[in-house]
């Protein structure tokens, strides 16, 4: 069991090192194939982890004091790492991390498969694949870390490869733009993690340990003073990653300039680190301080929902639009966490997974459209995609409907549970405020629908006579079908059977 | 002899050296001023040794070290001055500004 977890942590890292060590002659196809095999193995390993975890360790709602219902972690490895500082190499998984690990493994695997045929124009696939594998290892590490410092290290490991991916393989028409986007991304995220590290140190000063299991069982109590400062620092630091309005400014640029696989990983996996951190660290470790800041967190999340949706309505670039839609969706997740209720928490966890799947699909589609037209500007692409690329147009419509939260598809359940959580927040929170947030967030879903319909209208529909098909634009290729169908299937499956995930979390 | 006299002399010597290093233009003079400063320190060491009398004569030992060091240092320094003279045709410290930060930025 713990061998599997160690395996899926070490395998991509070692594989990446091996890939760099290999002679240069390795072809692009072969590199992608190598990546696909490695990430496929990781996917298998992560699925094996799934079966044997149950319950959510040590979280039993904020109302009751934490720690009564400690459920054991699975796949634990615990050893000293930096003894003088009290830092341990402590990893393990429970039911909130396993789905995220599987999602990470799945998206990385799909990105590698996708790269078999479709590669950025710059080439250098060997390095790209290696960087993807490093990101995978870092993210899985962050999702399984049970030590604050280890979490922080894994959180940071992910950053540099992503920076390189945007900087090297990004939009090849706009060199200055992609450099700026990559730099903004890395600087803002590092700024956030610095604040988060300060928060961790404050926690350490108060509790004397970095160990998450111990911290969860005997949390840092008190809603004022040092715990409040620690909670604020951790929350702001993670909010940069989530990203929460108004710290979201790095996101649209980074997504718009990143290559397709980079966008998919960034949106599908990296953003989840922030929300996972909020659920894993902020809520259980600093329960009282979290209650103090939760209404503000909820308020900013609600603003993010509205501001993100409104900004989407004004976008003229497909990738930027989808990136901004993430701001709105992550706002929902923030609202769910800030409600501190079981429904809201489960909704946030569900929406995490659903957003990873659906936005991954959306970015794949946007990348496909961009590859075919050599631009992602709506005005240059033209309209009537239904006539030119009927299958891709239909899939885009499907993904948009899923993303706007149509019941029966995966996007709905998360948002529904979050709104339910906001309707019925934890007893310690001001209910009337949350009702206002709920209503505003509900209107946000209408705005979400509005911008996705606008996208469909401006991109897919229109008079084919004015927008003749270009000669090079081929419809859905086989590799795209193979890569996207798991995401489509999962979207529908989770939509009609939410219990698949909800049962995993059980009664929190 | 009161301790203060050699110390005062050392201060005077040191200040002369500092002045020479900071204000003189000729590189050889700067090196000589450097020697002045080192010797001021030597004087200090010897004076404190005589005052402290710890039996190991640490101060005097250190002074010998400093003299050795000064010899090595003056060797290197003169070599640099020689190179400067060969390259630029003068030994003017003010005019030797190869380390200046130019306006055009590398980034």
């Amino acid at each position, binding site marked *: 069991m713990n061998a599997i977890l160690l395996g899926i942590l070490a395998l991509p890292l070692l594989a990446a090192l091996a890939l760099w060590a290999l002679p240069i002659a390795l072809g692009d196809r072969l590199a992608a194939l190598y990546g696909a095999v490695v990430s496929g193995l990781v996917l298998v390993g992560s699925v094996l982890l799934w079966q044997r975890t149950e319950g959510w360790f040590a979280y039993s709602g904020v109302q009751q004091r934490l720690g009564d219902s400690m459920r054991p972690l699975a796949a634990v490895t615990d050893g000293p790492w930096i003894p003088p500082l009290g830092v341990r190499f402590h990893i393990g998984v429970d039911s909130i991390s396993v789905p995220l690990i599987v999602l990470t493994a799945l998206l990385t695997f799909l990105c590698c498969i996708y790269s078999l045929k479709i590669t950025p124009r710059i080439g250098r696939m060997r390095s790209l694949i290696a960087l993807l594998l490093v990101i995978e290892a870092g993210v899985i590490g962050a999702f399984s870390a049970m030590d604050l410092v280890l979490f922080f290290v894994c959180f940071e490991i992910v950053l540099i490869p992503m920076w390189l991916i945007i900087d090297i393989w990004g939009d090849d028409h706009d060199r200055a733009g992609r450099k700026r986007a990559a730099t903004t991304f890395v600087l803002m995220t590092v700024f956030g993690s610095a604040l988060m590290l300060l928060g961790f140190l404050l926690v350490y000063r108060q509790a004397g340990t970095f160990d998450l299991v111990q911290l969860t069982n005997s949390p840092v109590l008190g809603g004022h003073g040092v715990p409040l400062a620690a909670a604020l620092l951790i929350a702001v630091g993670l909010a940069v990653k989530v990203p929460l309005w108004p710290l979201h400014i790095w996101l649209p640029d980074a997504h718009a300039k990143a290559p397709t696989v980079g966008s998919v990983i960034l949106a599908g996996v990296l953003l989840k680190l922030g929300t996972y951190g909020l659920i894993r660290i902020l809520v259980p470790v600093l329960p009282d301080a979290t209650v103090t800041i939760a209404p503000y967190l909820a308020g900013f999340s609600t603003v993010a929902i509205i501001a993100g949706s*409104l900004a989407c309505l004004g976008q003229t670039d497909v990738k930027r639009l989808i990136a901004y839609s993430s701001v709105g969706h992550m706002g929902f997740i923030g609202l769910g966490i800030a409600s501190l209720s079981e429904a809201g928490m489960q909704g946030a966890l569900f929406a995490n997974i659903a957003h990873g799947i659906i936005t991954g699909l959306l970015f794949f589609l946007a990348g496909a459209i961009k590859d075919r037209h050599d631009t992602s500007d709506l005005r240059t692409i033209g309209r009537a995609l239904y006539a030119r690329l009927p299958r891709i147009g239909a899939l885009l419509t499907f993904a948009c409907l899923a993303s706007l939260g149509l019941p*029966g598809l995966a996007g709905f359940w998360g948002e529904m549970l979050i*709104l*339910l959580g906001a309707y019925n927040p934890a007893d310690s929170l001001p209910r009337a405020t949350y009702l206002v947030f709920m209503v505003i967030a509900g209107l946000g879903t209408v705005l979400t*629908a509005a911008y996705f319909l606008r996208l469909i209208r401006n991109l897919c529909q229109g008079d084919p006579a004015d927008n003749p098909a270009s000669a090079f634009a081929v419809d859905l290729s086989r590799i795209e079908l193979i890569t996207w169908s798991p995401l489509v299937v999962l979207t529908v499956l989770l939509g009609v059977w939410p219990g698949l995930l909800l049962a995993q979390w059980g009664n929190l | 002899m009161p301790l203060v006299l050699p110390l005062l002399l050392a201060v005077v010597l040191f200040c002369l050296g500092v002045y020479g290093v900071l204000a003189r233009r000729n590189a050889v003079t*700067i090196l000589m001023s450097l020697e002045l400063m080192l010797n001021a320190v030597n004087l200090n060491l010897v004076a404190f040794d005589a005052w402290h009398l710890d039996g190991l004569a640490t101060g005097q030992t250190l002074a010998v070290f400093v003299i050795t060091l000064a010899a090595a240092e003056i060797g290197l320094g003169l070599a640099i001055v020689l190179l400067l003279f060969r390259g630029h045709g003068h030994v003017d410290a003010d005019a030797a500004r190869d380390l200046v930060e130019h306006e055009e930025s590398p980034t």
Partner: protein
Amino acid sequence: MIATVWRVAGVGFSLLLILIAGLLYGVAPEQTSFLNSSVGDLTIGFAVRTDDLTVLLLAVVGVVATCVQVYSLSYLHERAASYHALVTLFTAAMATVVVADSLFLLLIGWEVMGACSYLLISHYWERRDARSGAVKAFLMTRLGDVGFLFGIFVLGVGAGTFRISELDPAQISPGVLTAGTLLLLVGVVGKSAQVPLQTWLPDAMPGPSPVSALIHAATMVAAGVFLIARLYDVFSASATTMTVLAVIACVTMLFAALCAMAAVEVKRVLAWSTVSQLAIMFSALSLGTQEGRHAALFHLVTHAAFKGLLFLCAGVLLHQVGSAAFVVLRRYTRRGKLRKTLRVTFVTMTIGLAALAGVPGFAGFFSKDTVLEAAWEHAHKDGSAIGWVVLASVGLTAAFTAFYCARLWLWVFFRTPALAGAMGAFEQDDPMADLEDPDTSKLKEAPWLMLGPLVLLAVAAIGLGYVDGLHLNWVIALGSTVLVLFGVLPAYSLWSRGADPRPVVLEREFGMDRAYHGLFVVPVRWLSKLSVLGDRDVIGAYVRAVGRSGTLASQGFRLLQTGNVQTYLTGAVVGVVALAILAGVIAR
């Protein structure tokens, strides 16, 4: 190939629904739940049930869907695969709503219908009006659905269950009950296009006519009526909600009937009449009595038959003539062609209009009569004000309905003697009308694949009136017949004089569309611009400013790098001295 598969699947699925309805007929009501998962104290999952209401609605949906699928076989040729697939999905979603016992399963069907409706309205996505109509339909119903979702929360959390069969109004506190039902009502109003969320339905008409028949007449818009009937115990337990419902229904039925009186396109007239007829059903429900519920469901069934029929007839006109605008149809009519060539269509459409107008002997007459009777009973026996208001407005609406039906029938199919072949009142819409004469020789009757469903539905539009058993209150029947005459006579007299006065306020549909545009669409556009600019010029500016201040600072510090070693040393010495002094001060 794919199109054929979907055609077969579509027809097969709707026949299957009829079969299931037949099998379930008379079976004792039961519920089954599945795929449950618990979230906190609540259980979220799915459940289905069978009872009379389910069977009734399944049968209605099945029959109308079968007619529409068969009709579409010959009506629609381009993009047939996606069309039939979506219609099938739509039918499945409606069936889900009908059988659902879990509010969430119901919501899934409810919103999937909305999405299918959106996709089907924009079936002709080349057309601008289809695109904007589809977006409008989806957004307005979605706005209602947000209220619906919140209503589910309020009721579900209040009652501790999301199962419809377990919702017991006696165990929910009155405040929660009223709030919950009012919120559900928002969703119902959006879905059934009642005032004030009515403007999407007329704009949904650019979709293919069979879709209008299925979605915008017989099933989806009727889902609102179904929902209230399903949750009738809960709704009728809240007097406030019922009053609100009555007010909405009465305002809507008159509003929509007035709009229909001034519309100049067959499908638009029918769309407004749908809104108006749905409002009649709601008014019957708002009585809060079992008779009212019965009357509403009876009217729902007959309405599904004759409105489906009328939309399919309009589809024939569109298919054979190419347009359903009065002005175009008049060009054929003035040569006397339309009625003679499209004989079957003419007869069936006459039956449909007669049923809609409530001409005695047709289904619409009986069902409307039941509504009036229920209102009368309620008003007379219980002395309720709602009953009187409903009675009066349904009566008035009956007259209006008769007026616009007669107007539609006369102007589309008959030459006006007074005009001697001129276009008459619709000329001003099209200045070229008199010059351009259509080639009437190519006009021919539609294929039998399309006419078959028409005949079937026409039979239903007469016969369904008698299935409920004849129990007429002769006074009310006589009264409503007189009201119909009051409606028909002015229409006839106006037509025979060749006049069609259309008040501007009615033609603009009371300006609500424009008001909404000004109140909501324009501000949202402004806000979106503001948001984009705010991100770029405010939040982005701060981030850029941080970057720039770093660069500026580095440029400033670089100036110290003079290259003069002695300057550096001076700095170092000053620094050391300063530190030494500082150390001395601190040590003191």
